[in-house]
């Protein structure tokens, strides 16, 4: 053995999973969603995805270069932020505004806190919240999906000049012989016009998006892939969808005329995208399993409450941001119970061996067990 010996402390082996691998898999699972988004809206959606992601990567690079945050481009986390942010923006959203959103998402949503892992709020939602406040008109205008010629022509507002009023899409749509239904998502139609969309429309295409994006079923399938490979915690989406559905179902039971059915609540708007990709952002969600349930339930209930009782048709973004802020508190009150401190008196179910009749219960054991270890200060045999 002429080689040098290294000393490291145990464990000497390591699971193959890395941060990069997790992030790469999330990006991979987002690609089908993005592809469907592009299929629906054509070149405008593609340009939006590329520009926003590029803006995110550029900002990340800038902050890594200046040393104000740890992390690097190779960890893929900025790509996730960019893709998610682009998916929440309406098709035809001016590209320069999308770039602003991307820069804000990384700069204010992530770099400000110190980079990957330190952010309190989901960066993509920070970016979207910013542009929602800054450009309320642009973010509320939608164009229908599956327009003819969508792979050749940009929606005119997409290529608007910075700081200029975007061109009017209504005239463009009328020019294309389509009735002026732009500016109304299924949720907005329900909220402001009292119109319900057919369930098959919700599932197929029209309503997955925070705006009007990919099918909720597609997002659900991609999320199932992530959960099965354990790149995402299944508890949070289940808690969100369950609590949102339950709350909506209760209200629907109270007044079916005023409130829509729970199915509409769960599959419309951005709830699916938010539940599976936004709320499960690891850095901004609780670590503790119990905390995940509480956090998910909070998001679900808040979403329904905001959708029903606020002036906005959509509530997922604010529900997630508020719950992000509540995460440290949730974590603090939901710490796991350490082994041996549960106070359970009975043996747990599923043990492979029966206890002996002479087994003394924990109460008796606690009475027997002195404060210090039993074997201490024991006299010689």
């Amino acid at each position, binding site marked *: 053995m002429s080689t040098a010996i290294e*000393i490291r402390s145990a*464990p*000497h082996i390591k699971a193959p999973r890395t*941060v990069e691998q997790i992030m790469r898999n999330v990006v991979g699972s987002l690609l089908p969603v993005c592809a469907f988004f592009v299929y629906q809206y054509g070149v405008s959606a593609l340009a939006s995805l590329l520009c926003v992601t590029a803006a995110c990567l550029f900002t990340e690079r800038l902050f890594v270069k200046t040393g104000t945050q740890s992390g690097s481009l190779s960890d893929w986390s900025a790509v996730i932020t960019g893709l998610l942010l682009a998916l929440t923006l309406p098709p035809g959203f001016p590209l320069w505004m999308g770039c602003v959103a991307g820069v804000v998402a990384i700069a204010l949503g992530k770099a400000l806190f110190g980079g990957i892992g330190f952010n309190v709020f989901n960066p993509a939602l920070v970016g979207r919240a910013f542009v929602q406040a800054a450009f309320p008109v642009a973010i509320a205008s939608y164009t229908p999906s599956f327009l003819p010629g969508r792979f050749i022509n940009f929606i005119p507002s997409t290529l608007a000049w910075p700081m200029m009023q975007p061109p009017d899409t209504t005239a463009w749509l009328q020019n294309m012989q389509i009735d002026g239904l732009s500016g109304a998502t299924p949720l907005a139609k329900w909220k402001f016009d009292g119109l319900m969309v057919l369930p098959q429309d919700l599932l197929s295409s029209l309503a997955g998006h925070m705006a009007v994006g990919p099918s909720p079923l597609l997002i659900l399938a991609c999320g199932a892939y992530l959960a099965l490979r354990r790149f995402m915690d299944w508890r949070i989406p289940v808690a969100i969808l369950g609590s949102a559905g339950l709350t909506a179902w209760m209200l629907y039971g109270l007044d079916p005329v005023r409130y829509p059915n729970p199915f509409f609540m769960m599959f419309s708007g951005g709830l699916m995208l938010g539940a599976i990709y936004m709320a499960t952002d690891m850095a901004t969600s609780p670590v503790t399993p119990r905390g995940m349930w509480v956090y998910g339930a909070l998001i679900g209930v808040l979403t329904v409450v905001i959708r029903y009782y606020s002036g906005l048709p959509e509530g997922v973004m604010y529900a997630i941001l508020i719950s992000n802020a509540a995460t440290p508190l949730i974590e603090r009150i939901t710490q*796991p*119970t350490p082994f041996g401190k549960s106070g359970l008196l009975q043996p*747990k179910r599923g043990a*492979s061996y029966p206890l002996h009749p002479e087994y003394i219960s924990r109460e008796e054991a606690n009475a027997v*067990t002195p404060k210090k270890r039993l074997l201490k200060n024991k006299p010689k045999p």
Partner: protein
Amino acid sequence: MKFLNFLRGETFARGIHPPQNKHTAHTPIRRLPFAPELVVPLSQHIGKAPRPMVQVGQEVVRGQPIAKGEDWLSVPHHAPATGVVEAIELRPSARGPWTESIIIRPYAGATQEDLWGVPRDTSVMDGPEILQAVWDSGLVGLGGAAFPTHAKLMVPKQAKVHTLVVNGCECEPYLTCDHRVMLENTKELILGMQLAMRATGAVRGIVGVEDNKPDAVAAIQSVIDATRLDNIFVEAVPTKYPQGSEKMLLMALFGVEIPSGALPVSLGMVMNNVGTLAALGQLLPAGQGLTERVVTIAGPGVSRPGDYRVPLGTPISFVLEWAGASAQPSSHAPSACQLVLGGPMMGQAVASLDTPITKGVSGILVFHPEDMADRDGRRTFPCIKCGECVESCPMGLNPSALGMLAAKREYELMGQRYHLGDCFECGCCTYVCPSNIPLVQQFRIAKQVLREKASAL
């Protein structure tokens, strides 16, 4: 596929499934010859070091006591070979500091038979006699902790023991020494169990074996059936790390949580390792002392891996040479290798090849850097709060929060609010951490600081 666990049968909560790499499970135990010089450190176990009973230049025969326990937690040592005491001096130890050791030069023609010891009839021995005999044999826990066995078998007055649990889990990857002992020394194991049950007053004995060793379960069961024992049972438990931990195995077998800070004896159970009890069943009838143990020599850097019966005190360099790790690792990077005493999850890396095999060494593993899951090439990220560590901690702690507090040196808070004291350093959190944060290493430091603070008061 963790979410499919419910199909595999319930065991303790959380835990991990590292790759097992038990390549040496099907090769019989082989003997290792005597090294040119055997180094017997006086401190080989938890407790006070015994006092040497021999002088420099004295001839000893194999099995002769050479050091005598004074304290009740200090066990005697026996000469591992027939030879001459060359020196009693400080030598490097695996724990780090140089410790006083007895150096024995075996005679060239010495046999590996124990020449010292009076055979006795174990069937007439009562509890205290067995305890005394166990103490005299110098037996300590051969699983790795090296806690004196007689102390473990001694039941405090206020407790009553009904069950002896035998730990045959061997959940660490690579290690197979307990597995081979269960296969090859099954009768001794059963005899050792009977003696230990008599010593503790237990009315039944249960061997818990992980279900990746079905042949061991079958071997033990066949001995039980052949001798028509009705108070000894063998039970297969689902394979999972760290099942070899006392509390985890009791959870898997009985579904009871040992209260935090208490010992299993407070619930009427005593646990011992299979290797220890097999040695007990071997040594007590022969009236001998512990002079050798089974060691797994494995790892990617060993060309002839296997389980070897190694005389205590054999220097690691000799063992490795014999197992084929001495060849120039030309196919490997020439830079470095790592020697681990014990398993890869909890074992200790040693710096010196001169350190000897002691009673608590269950394996020697040789790793090269490229075997270690590209650990060097891997970046350390800040905690991304993925929750993997929380999902894997068998003690139900929150290693993520503990790690963040450790980075801020908030050690008191770690102990008070986050139950640092319950951590038994199994390393699951560090194993799974995708950010490559040295969590368990931080906890060790924190615990050390807290211990020092507590002792300073």
